[in-house]
């Protein structure tokens, strides 16, 4: 059950592009044609599915507070969390390289379709963002981490596919000259993101942990406005909060 919930949540509610704007650079740069968008989207799904579980293992057994306890009780109070950026990005860069080599060897046709995009992916924010969100959301098991990587990859794929299709059509429309190209793409993405917000109410009443700073804000009993502010920033962390904000 929680697998299904996480799956749909990562695709629709916490969509990488529309909720957290991860991977916008390649999303804007490679969405001019549907075929190339499909290639990049597939590569993102692939790499996310591989890197998120690996980084989950790293986080669980190396980085988090007290994670080194399996070495012996005297290691229990080590917290290597500050190293997570460098380890995650190193994993991603090496995995991308490895994936490239393996794919080239065993499936040259796939390599030809993904080939140019694979090196680009190492610096795609969606990949590192997937691992960092996996860490900050405390995903509990390896299976869920795999699920999270795969489904947020699918979410990214859907987003780039949709915008590529729209951009192919919009070429025939009469867009004001200064908005042509980049400007209209931004505005369309904004409108699509508003559309995707309507998925926010799809899964409610989950047992999701509330972000710590929201709880502290309630303690201080700040005014309504300030609460909305903190809620908004929490929305970057969990978009289910967005649904509560829109209901207000």
């Amino acid at each position, binding site marked *: 059950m929680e697998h299904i919930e996480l799956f749909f949540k990562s695709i629709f509610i916490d969509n990488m592009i529309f909720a957290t704007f991860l991977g916008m650079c390649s999303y804007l740069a490679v969405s001019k044609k549907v075929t190339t968008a499909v290639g990049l989207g597939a590569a993102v799904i692939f790499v996310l599915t591989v890197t998120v579980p690996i980084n989950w293992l790293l986080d669980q057994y190396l980085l988090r507070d007290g994670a080194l306890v399996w070495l012996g009780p005297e290691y229990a109070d080590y917290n290597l969390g500050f190293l997570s950026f460098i380890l995650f990005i190193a994993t991603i860069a090496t995995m991308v390289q490895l994936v490239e080599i393996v794919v080239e060897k065993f499936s040259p046709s796939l390599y030809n379709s993904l080939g140019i995009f694979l090196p680009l992916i190492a610096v795609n924010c969606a990949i590192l963002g997937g691992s960092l969100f996996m860490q900050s959301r405390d995903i509990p098991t390896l299976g869920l981490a795999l699920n999270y990587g795969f489904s947020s990859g699918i979410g990214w794929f859907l987003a780039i596919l949709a915008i590529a299709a729209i951009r192919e059509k919009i070429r025939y429309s009469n867009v004001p000259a200064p908005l042509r190209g980049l400007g209209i793409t931004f505005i369309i993405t904004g409108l699509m993101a508003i559309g995707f917000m309507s998925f926010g109410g799809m899964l409610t009443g989950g047992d999701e942990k509330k972000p710590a700073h929201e709880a502290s804000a309630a303690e201080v009993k700040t005014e309504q406005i300030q609460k909305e502010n903190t809620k908004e920033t929490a929305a970057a962390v969990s978009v289910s909060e967005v649904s509560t*904000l829109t209901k207000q």
Partner: protein
Amino acid sequence: MALLSKKDSRLILDPLADNNPITIQVLGICSALAITAQLKASIVMALSVMVVLAVGNVVISLLRNVIPGKIRIIAQLIIVAALVIIVDQVLKAFAYELSKQLSVFIGLIITNCIIMGRFEAFALANKPWRSFLDGIGNAAGYGLILIIVGFFRELLGSGTLLGFKVLGDPIAKTGVYAFGYENNGFMLLSPMALIIIGIIIWAQRSRNKALIEE
């Protein structure tokens, strides 16, 4: 600008307008949009990127003859990651609340396309001082957009600027709220950042026709 030669000062001034990293080069949008609901977070993000980009550009430029071409991406990533860790730790130590708000987006500076883009396009081929200026200039251009977006989102969305209630108190109905003005809560939601940037691009390209695509 007696301090800088004309060529050097262009390095700083160009990215502020006609070669802006966000609106023209389309770099570094990833980690920028989600944190612009408040002006303060935007400013902190802009400063963090400026530190990382300026220092990183200098480091890469110093090492440009040492780094082998084939593994340069990994070398660059490691250098950026180290710098970002420093920024992250400093923020955690001196501005803990803010670093909570920025959540993973400080970490995402690593994969911010601006950083890699400038390393590849500029620092690998230029001397340290010019690379430093290029880093400052591009980060300033990035920060400028961030601050414009943050300004409008915070002003229209919650009626405050940097936390000060510039439009009056919405509960006690003072200031403009006395005339029935309401905050536009929609501005606080992330899609509005995209639309505001779309409008900035529109304004910029209407002013400078040379930038229009197609």
